[in-house]
């Protein structure tokens, strides 16, 4: 499998001088394939005594449970596992990915010109125009916040989801070697806290826009008197409250569910080569490696669609909810 990835790299290098939009996408796809083929390589050398010693054999249960634990840090010292603990790994990766997105798009925006762009500039423009069209179709208000919000949500959620395609043990292995980090989960959107942070922020924005457009009285009237008349006030309130609470709940849980399930399946696929080492390599092990590569490839390709779709859905639902906050009944 490493030879496959080296072969792909060489082919990509030879094609690198003809960068237009189509071949840019092709090279992007090749990088995905590279990452996926590196997957089997990383899980095979798992027990390799390099910088970390596996004292004993790890069972599959322990492997999975170990990989599902977050790296917790206490905000106030001495309060481990209380309310004031944060998941340092999710925080780090979400902020890192956000900086990646912001800086790369900022540099593209600085170099923007009237003439038709190519390369990275073309890609950025394609994304921005796509999202702008979607927002124009869906949002019927006049706020200038919505389109940049949609772009941020889409790109940030997509990049956070993309961390799921990196081989499962790769970054935790580097963390253990370099900084002695015991637990690391690299996918921020597989953390309920991150997804609910996003969806609760959207919820607050919905309330803010509702109150700004309709006024406090209009907002209260809409909560109390829709959909039945004013004589069924408590029932109206209950229905409206449930509807309003369901929005952030479903937004957060949808993203979390998809990404958690995807990560878990990658972990199960990584179990295939548990306990195999490069020193005690037997020909029977190559069967496991091939199985793992094929399954990993299939699931990673399907997961590509899922992460794109889920980021898009999050963005579309945000815009739709904010547009609904503008409407009068």
């Amino acid at each position, binding site marked *: 499998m490493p030879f496959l990835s080296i072969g792909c790299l060489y082919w990509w290098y030879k094609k690198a001088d003809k960068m237009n939009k189509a071949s840019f996408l092709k090279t992007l796809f090749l990088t995905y394939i590279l990452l996926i083929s590196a997957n089997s390589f990383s899980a095979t050398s798992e027990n390799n005594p390099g910088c970390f010693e596996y004292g004993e054999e790890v069972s599959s*249960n322990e492997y999975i*449970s170990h990989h599902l634990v977050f790296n917790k840090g206490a905000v106030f010292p001495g309060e481990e596992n209380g309310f004031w603990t944060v998941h340092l790994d999710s925080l780090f990766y979400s902020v890192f990915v956000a900086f990646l997105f912001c800086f790369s798009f900022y540099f593209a925006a600085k170099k923007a010109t009237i003439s038709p762009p190519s390369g990275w500039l073309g890609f950025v423009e394609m994304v921005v125009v796509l999202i702008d069209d979607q927002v124009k179709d869906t949002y019927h208000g006049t706020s200038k916040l919505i389109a940049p919000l949609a772009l941020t949500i889409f790109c940030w959620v997509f990049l956070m989801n993309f961390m799921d395609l990196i081989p499962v043990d790769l970054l935790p292995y580097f963390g253990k070697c370099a900084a002695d980090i015991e637990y690391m989960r690299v996918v921020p959107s597989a953390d309920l806290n991150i997804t609910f942070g996003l969806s609760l922020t959207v919820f607050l924005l919905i309330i803010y826009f509702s109150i700004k457009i309709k006024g406090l009285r209009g907002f209260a009237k809409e909560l109390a008197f829709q959909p039945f008349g004013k004589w069924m006030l408590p029932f109206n309130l209950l229905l409206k409250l449930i509807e309003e609470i369901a929005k952030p709940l479903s937004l957060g849980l949808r993203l*979390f*569910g998809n990404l*958690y399930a995807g990560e878990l399946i990658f972990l199960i696929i990584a179990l295939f080569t548990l306990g195999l080492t490069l020193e005690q390599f037997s020909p029977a092990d190559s069967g496991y490696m091939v199985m793992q590569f094929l399954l990993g490839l299939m699931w990673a390709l399907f997961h590509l669609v899922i992460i794109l*779709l889920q980021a*898009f*859905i999050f963005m*579309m639902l945000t815009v739709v909810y904010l547009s609904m906050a503008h409407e009068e009944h």
Partner: protein
Amino acid sequence: MENDFILGMTAIAASILIGMGALGTAIGFGLLGGRFLEGAARQPEMANMLQIKLFIVAGLLDAVPMIGVGIALFFVFANPFIGG
């Protein structure tokens, strides 16, 4: 030994979660795809726009069984009913 019953019930529960979710989603996607094909056949120029809407609804439809799968896998691997 003392966890046998809970483990057995957890296995059944996880299977029902995943299975029923998959059943509902499959039927839903079938209906959705059928309507999309019908609509595209009646008005081929709308096919592109309909496809975008198809994926939006597909993403929405996907969410609930995915939540079910997440919960089921959580029960399988980190069963909270098995104490200590």
